[in-house]
């Protein structure tokens, strides 16, 4: 292993920081110490969205630096310390504070400085440039004393600066030397539309103006601008934003080759005339020019990171200068080569929209375009220019604004389609990240590709079968609630009917049980007949709870936790006879473990004969209604909580819902039944019952919320009926009442209005639905035992009555438990 090497980066702007990130991502810190000199006291921040600083974004919001990244071993960032001298012979960099660092490789990422035209008075009190957060703060401080301000420069940055002055409440002027705004990006027609839009906002535009003098008052402060030809514009402050110049002082100082118009000359690998020194970003001249956008700068950072770490051989072939911006709230986009081919122009002189497409008529092929005032369709058009989408024969019609924004659809694009220009992320990389659960930087810089990234992510997630916010799975484009309404309103009675009408594919383990639950809620029919049996989830499949070894546990219902000695004995005898492990549950019931599929009906026959019925421990349904003994036995009880619990359990047993439901009834405020941790909790008062809802224990505990106080028995039942049915209809798949409640707009007040004031006008419907449920309930296990056809499904193997040989138990504390793998290995 060789000694550690040192890489010095001069400059910590967006591009310098991108290089740091790319180096770390490629594992550079294993071999390299990385020393960064950052002139500003702030580390890298987002200059693209600088004007948002005046719209309330703080310096922290603009920061690009993940604090964890600074913990990277071997990385040092010296803030407030500028690299000022390079000694190429000794390979050292010296900083303003006197640090001298020896380098094995040096990267110049010094960026650019604003160009201030050589006008007399350009350094007067009240003259500013627009580049750093410090500049912005100075502008903001000074603007407090001003009423009018002018920006010199009507380009991209000039309009940004104008937006800043406007945000500060100044009467704003834009002064441009060229005959139109944004002369580099847009043509004459676009400039006209843009000017009209900008002036609509109250910003005065002065084009074709050459400023000859900044006039000043007695104290040397700005009073106005003198134009060639004699015209005078009175202003209180001036912001220069008339282009940038590469910062090449460091390179000049050490004798590196410099371009004619400034900038460090580098080759397509970003190497300067000294093989140990690279230059990237706005200070570099590649292919004979500087590249003043962030995307090409990021590309250069990747090129250098590849070489330093030897992890790739990318080169800078020239940057894509396509941009879509919102300047002063106005959409402006320029892409491809808008001046080539034949122009097709859409111009709306009233609405001030200008859209020009450059078309090669032989293809036809889209070559580029300019969009002002309405950039709809930009995504698609850009993909066409790049060849990732085919150019349609009627491409000329795309010059007109899209009636509705149709982003390039994720499915149309190939894997290699470049989605995020700034960070060079392809569709394939986004898809990989979705699959691997990792992330990309797509959309994190200019944000223009965000809709497309969202669409790709969603499509990919659907392919993975994951639930995406608005659809339960890849087979239906609906939420559970929407599906429930469809099933109810269209009176759909089977999954296949629903799939044929509203879905695609064959369904899956997400949508099938969801729909099965709805059908059960709406019809209360036996869940394992016909097609329904193919929809049921693990536990519903055999009306028992599958355990890790493929055996099942059995829970008979014990309403209110009240059980007779005879029933206890029956359970004990069954458990003993079938060799089942027994345990008391948290819901005042008894769980019997270790039954094989073919034993389930035999066990249940005995339990049903002893007067017991299914406890639905396997279903997304009512589980238990826990209770205390209440005033019947307890010295403190004020109501008969056990009777109420039994009544509730018998009323709601078998009710299929989006998730399991638990209830409890306490006989007094001592709350021994822990009702406030349940979906429905009832607590006795001297005069009736207090009703709590949407509590939860488990993974995300939530105390229940008080819905109503002092209800009598009938009012209590009616309120619970409506609450439960409302939840069943509107909750998402596998959404407990607690989560459902937290998402419910209007909270408890709204819920009260639905349940007691019937604001939705559905109370009668909810009452009827619950009445029907109660009237049609039957014990699923009894219904199974009564039918030889249903019983025939309860077999481990279709071709033999042998038991499953993989199921093996060992003894522990007088009962069975599943054998561990190491124990199984020791068996013959």
């Amino acid at each position: 292993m060789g000694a550690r090497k040192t890489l010095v980066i001069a400059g910590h702007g967006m591009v310098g920081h991108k290089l740091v990130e790319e180096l770390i991502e490629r594992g550079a810190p294993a071999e390299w110490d990385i020393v960064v000199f950052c002139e500003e006291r702030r580390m890298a921040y987002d200059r693209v969205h600088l004007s948002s600083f005046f719209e309330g974004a703080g310096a922290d919001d603009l920061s690009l630096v993940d604090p964890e990244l600074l913990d990277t071993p071997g990385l040092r960032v010296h803030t407030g310390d500028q690299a000022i001298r390079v000694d190429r012979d000794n390979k050292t960099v010296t900083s303003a504070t006197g640090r001298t660092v020896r380098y094995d490789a040096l990267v110049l990422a010094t960026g650019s400085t604003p160009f201030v035209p050589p006008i007399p008075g350009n350094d007067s009190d009240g003259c500013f440039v627009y580049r750093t957060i410090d500049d912005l703060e100075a502008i903001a401080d000074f603007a407090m004393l001003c009423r009018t301000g002018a920006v010199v420069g009507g380009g991209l940055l000039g309009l940004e600066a104008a937006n800043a002055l406007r945000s500060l409440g100044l009467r704003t002027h834009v002064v441009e030397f060229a005959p139109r705004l944004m002369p580099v990006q847009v043509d004459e027609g676009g400039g006209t539309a843009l000017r009209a839009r900008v002036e609509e906002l109250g910003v005065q535009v002065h084009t074709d103006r050459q400023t000859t003098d900044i006039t000043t008052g007695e104290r040397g402060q700005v009073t106005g601008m003198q134009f060639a030809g004699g015209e005078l514009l009175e202003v209180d402050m001036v912001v220069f934003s008339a282009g940038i110049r590469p910062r090449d002082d460091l390179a000049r100082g050490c004798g590196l080759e410099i371009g004619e118009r400034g900038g460090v000359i580098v080759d397509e690998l970003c190497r300067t005339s000294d093989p140990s020194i690279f230059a990237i970003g706005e200070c570099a001249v590649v292919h004979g020019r500087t590249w003043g956008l962030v995307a090409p700068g990021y590309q250069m950072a990747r090129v250098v990171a590849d070489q330093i770490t030897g992890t790739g051989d990318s080169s800078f072939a020239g940057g894509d200068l396509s941009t879509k911006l919102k300047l002063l709230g106005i959409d402006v986009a320029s892409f491809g080569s808008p001046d080539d081919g034949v122009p097709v122009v859409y111009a709306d002189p009233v609405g001030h929209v200008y859209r020009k497409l450059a078309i090669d008529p032989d293809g036809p092929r889209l070559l580029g375009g300019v969009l002002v005032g309405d950039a709809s369709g930009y995504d698609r058009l850009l993909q066409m220019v790049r060849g990732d989408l085919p150019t349609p024969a009627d491409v000329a019609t795309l010059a007109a604004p899209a009636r509705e924004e149709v982003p390039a659809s994720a499915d149309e694009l190939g894997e290699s389609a470049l989605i995020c220009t700034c960070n060079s992320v392809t569709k394939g990389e986004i898809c990989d990240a979705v699959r691997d659960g990792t992330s990309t930087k797509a959309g994190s810089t200019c944000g223009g590709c965000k809709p497309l990234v969202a669409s790709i992510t969603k499509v990919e997630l659907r392919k993975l079968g994951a639930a995406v916010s608005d659809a339960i799975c890849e087979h239906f484009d609906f939420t559970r609630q929407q599906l429930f309404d469809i099933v109810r309103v269209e009176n759909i009675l089977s999954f296949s009917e629903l799939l044929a009408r509203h879905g695609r594919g064959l369904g899956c383990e997400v949508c099938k049980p969801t729909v099965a639950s709805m059908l059960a809620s709406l019809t209360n029919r036996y869940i394992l007949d016909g097609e329904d049996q193919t929809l049921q989830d693990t536990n519903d499949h055999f009306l028992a709870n599958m355990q890790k070894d493929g055996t099942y546990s059995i829970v008979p219902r014990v309403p209110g936790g009240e059980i007779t000695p005879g029933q206890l004995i029956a359970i004990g005898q069954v458990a003993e006879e079938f060799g089942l492990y027994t345990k008391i549950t948290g819901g005042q019931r008894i769980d019997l473990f270790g039954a094989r599929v073919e034993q389930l009906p035999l066990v249940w026959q005995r339990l049903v004969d002893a007067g017991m019925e299914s406890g639905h421990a396997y279903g997304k349904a009512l589980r238990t209604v826990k209770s205390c003994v209440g005033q019947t036995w307890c010295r403190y009880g004020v109501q008969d909580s056990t009777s109420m619990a039994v009544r509730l359990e018998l009323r709601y047993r078998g009710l299929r819902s989006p998730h399991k439901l638990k209830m409890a009834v306490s006989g007094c405020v001592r709350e021994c039944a822990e009702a406030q941790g349940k979906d429905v909790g009832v607590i006795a008062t001297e005069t009736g019952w207090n009703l709590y809802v949407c509590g939860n224990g488990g993974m995300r505990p939530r105390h229940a919320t008080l819905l109503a106080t002092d209800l009598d028995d009938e009012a209590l039942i009616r309120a619970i009926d409506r609450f439960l049915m409302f939840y069943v209809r509107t909750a998402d798949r596998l959404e407990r009442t607690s989560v459902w409640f937290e998402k419910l707009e209007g909270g408890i007040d709204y819920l009260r209005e639905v349940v007691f004031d019937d604001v939705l006008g559905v109370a009668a419907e909810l009452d009827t639905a619950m009445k029907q449920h109660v009237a049609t309930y039957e014990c699923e296990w009894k219904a199974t035992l009564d039918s030889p056809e249903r019983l025939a499904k309860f077999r481990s193997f279709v071709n033999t009555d042998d038991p499953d040989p993989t199921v093996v138990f060992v003894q522990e504390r007088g009962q069975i438990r599943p054998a561990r793998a190491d124990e199984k290995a020791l068996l013959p």
Partner: protein
Amino acid sequence: MSWREVCASTHLTPNRGVAALFGEQQIAVFRVAELDEVLAIDNVDPFSGAAVLSRGIVGSAGESITVASPVYKQRFDLRTGTCLDNPDVCVATFPARVIDGRVEVEVPA
């Protein structure tokens, strides 16, 4: 390899699997209604070790026909045996057919 009878095809509910035992080998057999195809894979879920894949829900994911393990819900392609949620894992597949109303699978002799 030899063809062994599983059951009468009428005993195979569309889109619901059955398990068959041949010696030590457990095989999960499915009839996919929409394709009128019989497919067979190893019944043992490699993630839990439980012999339960026949009890999973049959469905589709894109072009794949799948069964989701009832234990931890990983999906397996019924034609290739590959786990869609972890492509490093796969289960054995077995040739299956329906002859004269009988479902048969080809298993190692």
